[in-house]
């Protein structure tokens, strides 16, 4: 290629909040899928996933097997990175900044500081501003979302209840966050400081959220999404995209279910398309009714 046209640019700046939050912008309207092997990662990419979450055990198995759930083997994550061209995310334990350092070092594109793993710190989350790799964090309400953004999270996901296949908590958390924002928008400015105090969120981010009428970062739904209809439900409620964890590879026909959920997330308002893609998908994951789950087995309460 000739060099005579096009003038040259300035010096590159890496790791800014803009580029961290920018990747999440590019994932919007998409589906991020949990995968435990490179083969599953390829199936997810083939089905149209915008990213994969590399982990050793999906949340449904973590529930069954119990024990301490930690960051996955970096070797296994690297194999998944090599297997696909789409972004690869991986989970670190809440507060475990060394797991996050390791994930950054192997070239993971997004770190999920996740309640699905056993927390490493019961008081503090990771200072995510320290990293060049962006973070996604879970939340159940606006206060929790803005605390995480205050710590440097560049993407938020409502938690739902991972590994259950029951969408009820995902709905509850998304409605709570979005409802909190709608209330905030109606609030006169003199009430914002007290509101910020009451929800335990940084004042500046509360103000910004009111001005934007949405979270300052991209917000996906997670935790219990198992069908195309579940994904479209979350999109219609108002999230920017969905995470599907156990819902795909714990179902009867992962490839066609994955593809159907991708299509449902794009065409979330088109009931004819939703009906067509929901046909003949085989068995969904078995699922656990969240209301029958003992309090101590709820993962969503992890996070401070």
């Amino acid at each position: 290629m000739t060099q005579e046209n096009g003038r040259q640019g300035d010096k590159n700046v890496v790791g800014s909040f803009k580029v961290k939050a920018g990747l999440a912008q590019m994932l919007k309207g998409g589906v991020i899928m949990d995968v435990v092997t490179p083969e599953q990662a390829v199936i997810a990419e083939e089905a149209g996933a915008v990213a994969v979450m590399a982990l050793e055990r999906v949340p449904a198995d973590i529930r069954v097997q119990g024990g301490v759930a930690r960051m996955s083997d970096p070797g296994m994550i690297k194999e998944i990175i090599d297997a696909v061209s789409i972004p690869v995310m991986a989970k670190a334990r809440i507060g475990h900044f060394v797991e996050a350092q390791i994930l950054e070092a192997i070239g993971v594109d997004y770190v999920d500081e996740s309640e699905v793993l056993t927390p490493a710190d019961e008081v503090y989350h990771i200072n995510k501003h320290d990293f060049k790799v962006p973070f996604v964090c879970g939340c159940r309400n606006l206060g929790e979302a803005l605390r995480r953004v205050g710590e440097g999270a560049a993407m938020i996901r409502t938690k739902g209840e991972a590994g259950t296949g029951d969408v009820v908590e995902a709905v509850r958390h998304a409605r709570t966050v979005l409802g909190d924002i709608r209330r905030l928008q109606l609030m006169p400015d003199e009430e914002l400081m007290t509101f910020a105090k009451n929800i335990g969120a940084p004042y500046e981010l509360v103000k910004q959220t009111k001005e934007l009428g949405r979270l300052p970062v991209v917000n996906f739904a997670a935790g219990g999404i198992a069908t195309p209809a579940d994904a479209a439900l979350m999109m219609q409620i108002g999230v920017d995209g969905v995470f599907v964890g156990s819902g795909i590879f714990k179902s009867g026909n992962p490839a066609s279910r994955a593809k159907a959920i991708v299509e449902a997330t794009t065409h979330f308002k088109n009931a004819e398309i939703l009906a067509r893609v929901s046909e003949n998908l085989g068995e969904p994951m078995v699922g656990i009714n969240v209301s029958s789950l003992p309090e101590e087995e709820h993962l969503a309460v992890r996070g401070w």
Partner: protein
Amino acid sequence: MKIGVLALQGAFIEHIKMLRSLGAAAVEVRLPQDLDDLDGLIIPGGESTTIGKLAVQYGLMEPLRSFAAERPVWGTCAGMIFMAREIGLDQPLLGVMDIVVERNAFGRQIDSFEVDLMIDGIAESDRPFPAVFIRAPRLIAVGRHGQVLARLADGTAVAAREGQWLVTSFHPELSDDGRLHQYFMHMVEAQKVAV
């Protein structure tokens, strides 16, 4: 002027907001019939594999190619990949523009960057444009009818135009600078007059 933004997946809302703030009518395009009566189209950033697969599944490939044959199309990041003739990987491409593109050309997300870029042809082109590169592609080759509009300091080509087609490796929809959208709107206006 009515401009569509391909809304299969990705950062389409940002493009729509920018176009509307500049006075254009902007609509989301998900199905072939959504292309009717549009004067131009933007293919946004997102995951090019996802956008390509959904375009195939929903019968958009040929309608998009016929649209591009007559009217202006601008691809940003994933959109640039989708418009390319060749990328060296097996994924659905429109192949309308004579460019060769390399995906993820700068590395992984930790290598994503911002840079002030000089771009030929935009308004006040002596003032740099704040460009955001996210797991960005680069132009390896531009056909003889095409023209490179911007390069990084190392000479890497990151924006080009060929007739009614425009491509950028970066995301003008993430910058608070409407000059590239204005540039595209001028292309759309000129094409309307020509037709």
